[in-house]
């Protein structure tokens, strides 16, 4: 177990180091999420409901995550570096977990800016919304990473990832919006936690088959 976690740490640190050097993903995610919220701010009528505004927040989060996921395996794809990782004697699910953690880190950074920006443009953020976003992030990154690995092997990868990811993100949006606007958010938070658990296990178990040619 210690060896597994050490591999995850080594691989995640490599992803963070690559991002610090290349700065190709986080700035794009930040710019996108803030721009999306500004557009929504002007697109929504001033008398629109809180429900509509919360919906916009979740649209922004899902598409920002999609942007990060699209970039997740770029380094591994461009010079077949995934071969180098697959050759290594580590458990292949460690590659998935490390990549999930790094995408999660990038998404959280984007949301640290996005949530205050949403509060500024629309309405305040309550604890249930923050909890919903945190749980949704886990599900988005767990599922999205395995789908990104799947899409990267195909030819129309930029097209394939949204087609695979967005249908699976619908329950996350349902749970997230529910947690943000319902009087009793616990039910929706529980639903998001269940989604995370089920899809994290499926993604963890299936990654090896996804990357094996």
């Amino acid at each position, binding site marked *: 177990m210690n*060896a597994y976690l*050490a*591999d995850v740490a*080594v*691989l995640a640190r*490599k992803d963070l*180091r*690559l991002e610090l*050097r*290349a700065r190709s993903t986080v700035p794009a995610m930040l710019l996108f999420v803030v721009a999306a919220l500004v557009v929504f701010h002007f697109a929504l009528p001033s008398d629109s409901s809180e429900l509509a505004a919360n919906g916009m927040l979740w649209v922004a989060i899902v598409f920002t995550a999609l942007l990060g996921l699209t970039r997740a395996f770029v*380094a591994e794809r461009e*010079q*077949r*570096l995934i*071969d*180098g*990782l*697959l*050759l*290594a*004697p*580590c458990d292949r699910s460690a590659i998935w977990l490390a990549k999930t953690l790094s995408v999660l880190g990038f998404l959280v950074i984007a949301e640290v800016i996005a949530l205050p920006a949403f509060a500024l443009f629309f309405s305040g953020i309550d604890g249930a919304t923050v909890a919903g976003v945190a749980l949704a992030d886990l599900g988005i990154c767990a599922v999205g990473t395995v789908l990104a690995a799947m899409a990267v092997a195909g030819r129309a990868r930029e097209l394939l990832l949204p087609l695979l990811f967005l249908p699976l993100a619908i329950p996350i949006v349902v749970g997230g919006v529910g947690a943000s606007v319902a009087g009793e958010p616990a039910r929706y938070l529980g639903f998001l936690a269940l989604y995370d658990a089920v899809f994290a296990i499926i993604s963890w178990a299936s990654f090896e088959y996804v990357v*094996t*040619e």
Partner: protein
Amino acid sequence: MIAARGLGRRFGEKRVLDGVDLDLPRGGFLLVTGPNGSGKTTLLRLVAGLLVPTAGELRVDAPRERVGFLGHEPLVYRELTALENLDLYGRLYRVAERRERIGMLLERFGLWEARNRRAETFSRGMLQRLALCRTLLHDPELLVLDEPFSALDEEGAALLDRELAELRPQATFVVSTHDPERVAALASDRLAFG
């Protein structure tokens, strides 16, 4: 060490490798030759465990941590330095005395002075030397080398000649090359495609 019976691999409808039989004992040196597109790379990727066969059987008696693979790409991150790349692989392969081994390989392949330079600033020949360091880092017992001399200048090629001769008694080799005469003296077995 390696045994194949009726080994085949298809990519969609395209059959790249078909009915390959192979026996390579431990300590053997298999030289694979053939024109481009004849299936050399596919065979080597199968042996390295990067592909699974779609027909026949393949048995490789070497654990993944003892296989060294050199392919067409150097498999190093361009944004990382030579040292960082080797440290990454050294940790994943749990190389004992990692720093000393990395230092020794960088010295041997003439990259010590460039150890803190990002791989993206390397020439093709330097990248190939770095890829060789990566391949040998974990002291593999099975070496799978796909066109190892490509992109190397004469000095680098001579260095690799010496390295192969030195490793020859300790490891099993599967090597594909367009220049078979270069390693002919080391080869114990040959497989010619097309």
